[in-house]
Structures are given as structure tokens and as C-alpha cells.
């Protein structure tokens, strides 16, 4: 039960003073509770279980290194993976843009139309401007609160709400089409 509490972001005073051994034990507890879901979450976004494992593993490596400073491990982990996913998407966008130049047979509009009836999370979030992606991922898909998203991204609550509002305005019509 207490585990759940600090997973949600309450600062742990005792944790700050703990040594490296107990830090490892504590992060292991987080690992046991969160890793599977986190990796699955990432897999849904990148469409590749191996890559998802890599991203989640990297997030835990960083968590272990920054453990004394982390107050909300769950939010921290999802933000970390979210950032990596975003970077991965950027790389992929760059590659596909270059590829599209050479494979010009199918116009991009036609490709989009083919997938219009099933909108994946990846497509939905990627259709948003860069600045809106992470707030949407964390708030809606990782189910973090506005406050947690704001803290994790270094934004004010108001800024997060504004981003979510903008995202709703952009995505809602697309989701209507999909249904």
C-alpha cells in the first residue's frame, strides 16, 4: 500500500537518506511494479517490443542513477520513456521524409487515407505539433495528472492545461472520423 503512495509521486523523506544498497532495493521494487506496464506502454507507441524494452531499460538505468533526486518515480519513468519515444519519432520522421523522396509512387495523402479508419495512438499523437505530444502522451495515455505532467516537464499547470486544450481541438475532429 505504501508502495502505491510513493509511486504516485509523494516525496519520500526516508528515501533521500538511504544508501546505494537500499536505493537499489527500492528501485527494484519500482521495477517489479512498473516495468512490464511501462515497456508495454512504450511498445504500443513504437510498435516494436525490442525497442520498447530498450527504452524502458534505459529509463530504469537513469532512474537508478538519479534515485535520490526523484520524487515521483512513476511520472518520472513515463516522462523519460515519453521523451525517448518522441526522439525516436523525430528520427523516424526524418528518415521517412528522406525515403519518400525516392519512393514517390504513392502520394502521401493516399497513404494516410488507407489508415484513416484505424487510428493508432502513435498516429494520433504524431499528428500533433511537437510541443503537444508529450503532455498528451503523459496525461491521457500514461494517465498522469496535470500536476504530475507539469512537474515532470518543468511547465506550469496552466501551460499543461493550455497544451491539452490545444491538443483536444486538433485531435477531436480526427477521432470523430475514426469512430
Amino acid at each position, binding site marked *: 500500500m505504501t508502495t502505491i503512495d510513493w509511486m504516485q509521486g509523494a516525496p519520500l523523506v526516508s528515501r533521500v537518506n538511504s544508501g546505494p544498497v537500499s536505493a537499489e532495493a527500492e528501485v527494484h521494487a519500482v*521495477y517489479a511494479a512498473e516495468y512490464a506496464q511501462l*515497456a508495454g506502454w512504450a511498445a504500443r507507441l513504437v510498435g516494436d517490443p525490442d525497442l520498447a524494452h530498450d527504452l524502458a531499460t534505459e529509463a530504469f538505468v537513469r532512474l*537508478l542513477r538519479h534515485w535520490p533526486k526523484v520524487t515521483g518515480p512513476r511520472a518520472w519513468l513515463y516522462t523519460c520513456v515519453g*521523451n525517448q519515444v518522441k526522439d525516436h519519432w523525430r528520427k523516424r520522421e526524418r528518415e521517412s521524409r528522406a525515403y519518400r523522396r525516392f519512393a514517390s509512387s504513392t502520394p502521401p495523402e493516399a497513404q494516410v487515407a488507407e489508415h484513416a479508419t484505424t487510428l493508432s495512438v502513435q498516429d494520433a499523437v504524431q499528428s500533433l505539433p511537437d510541443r503537444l505530444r508529450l503532455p*498528451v502522451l503523459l496525461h491521457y495515455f500514461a494517465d498522469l495528472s496535470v500536476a504530475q505532467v507539469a512537474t515532470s516537464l518543468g511547465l506550469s499547470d496552466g*501551460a499543461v492545461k493550455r497544451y491539452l486544450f490545444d491538443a483536444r481541438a486538433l485531435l477531436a475532429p480526427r477521432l470523430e472520423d475514426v469512430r
Partner: protein
Amino acid sequence: MTDHDNDPLRAYFDRERDQVEPLPADDERWGEITRRAGRRSRRVWVPAASVAAAALLVGAAVTTGIRQQPLPPATSDSVTMSVQTPVSTDQPAPTVTTVPTVTTMPPVTTVPESPPASTTRRPAISSTVPPMPPATSSRSAAPPPAPGSPTTTTPRRTSTAPPPPPASTSVRTPPTTRTSPTTTGCDATAITNDTGRVGITVDVCVGDWALVSTPGPGDTSEFVHRSSGHWTVFDGQPSTRCQSEAKAEGVPKQLLPYFRACSTTPSAADGRGETALLS
């Protein structure tokens, strides 16, 4: 959380989240995590230690250089300079020979010698040390190679073109302000207020443009731009924009290297050109 009763995104993402299939978390993976975390934290010390060592070395070199320098009263006469250098040197002949070449250069040389940033910098001393005098300049400025062992190179410097500006400016930074145009002029508080980011650090500042970052996991760097006194987020870093696009949108050339190098063909109808990766 906010009120999501009629939030279409909430329903969609809830549904999608329910379909997330957890991936296995085994002990082997945990072992890899602890191994990698340990290995990395050890690695952090290597560059940190080398930076500290280098700083110590430079500090020691500068202090010894300052001690050895007699610091005469400032006179703009180049003749006094010629007297000064031999006193300060511990090495014999070569420095003495450099002195005449220094005196041959008229006081005019002091101006081009000190590059833009340093002209205002040392009013009294620069007059005493006209065109990069041998021992003093290498000590007080403590440039790259060997601060304690000057000799040879000085005569040539005085007669030929001015020394490479970047080296001298960076070295001369400490005494005065001015040489860090990188972060001045971009008020982090103003950017924080305008963009809503919290805890902003200005990494690079060029006029109305800046590269800022916020504390947080992962890559949080962003380009911000000030127009009519208001800062807005221009793009994330790394950006998918090409340098040509960025340039067209007003990004200053100092920040262009952060953007992608693409070759541009002017054929596209939208006027932005098609882009392709160079490599």
C-alpha cells in the same frame, strides 16, 4: 485531473491504454539495469576528473605567471616595455632579442593586436604590453600550450597578422565581463513567464533567439524566439528543420548548426523546397 466527462480524447486513450500488453520483466533485465547504471556512474568521474585537472593546471600556470610578472606602472611607452620583459624572464637570450621587434612596432599596433572584445578590456596593461609581448602575454593570458615556457614565437607575431582572435578572447575573458555573448540578453525569467516553462536555463543566446533547457528527464532543449518583446517556443532540439528553413525563418547563423544539414531544391510549390538528407 480535469473534467473529462465529454472529453473525446479521454475515451480514446483510455481504450488504447486498456489494450497495452505488459512485457515481461525478468531478473536478467534487472541485472542489466544495475550493471549499466553502475558502469555509467563510474564513467562520469573520468571527464570530471580530467576537467578538474586541466583547471588546476591552468590556474597554477596563471598564478605563477602573475607572480613572475613585475607589473610596472602603466606607461604607453614601448621603451619601458623593452626594459620590463628581460626582468621578468627566467630564460636568457631569446626574450631579449624579441624586445627590439616589439619596440619597432609603433603604438598603433596595440589597437589591431587586441581583437574586438579585448579593446575595452585592459586599458592600463594593454598600453604597457603592446603587440603580444613574449613572456608577459603568454603568462597573463595563459593561452593553450605552455604557460611557463614561452620564448621563440613572439617576434613573428609582432611583425605579422594579429593572433587568432578566438584564443585570445576566450583566455582574456576572466578579467572583464563582455566576452560571453552566449547567454546575456536573454532573460530566463522573461522566457519562463512567456513560455510557461519552469526552471529555464539559457544555454545559448543570440539576439532575439535562444536555446534553452528545463530540468527534466530526457531531452528538454528548445529554441525560443522573441518577437515584439514576447518569447515563444520556436522548435524543439533536436529539430527536424533544415538549416535553410531555419535560416529563412530568421534563426541566426550561430544557431544554424543545431539544425539539420539538408540539400534544398527550389522546386516545391510551397516555396520551402524539397529536402533530402545529405548522409
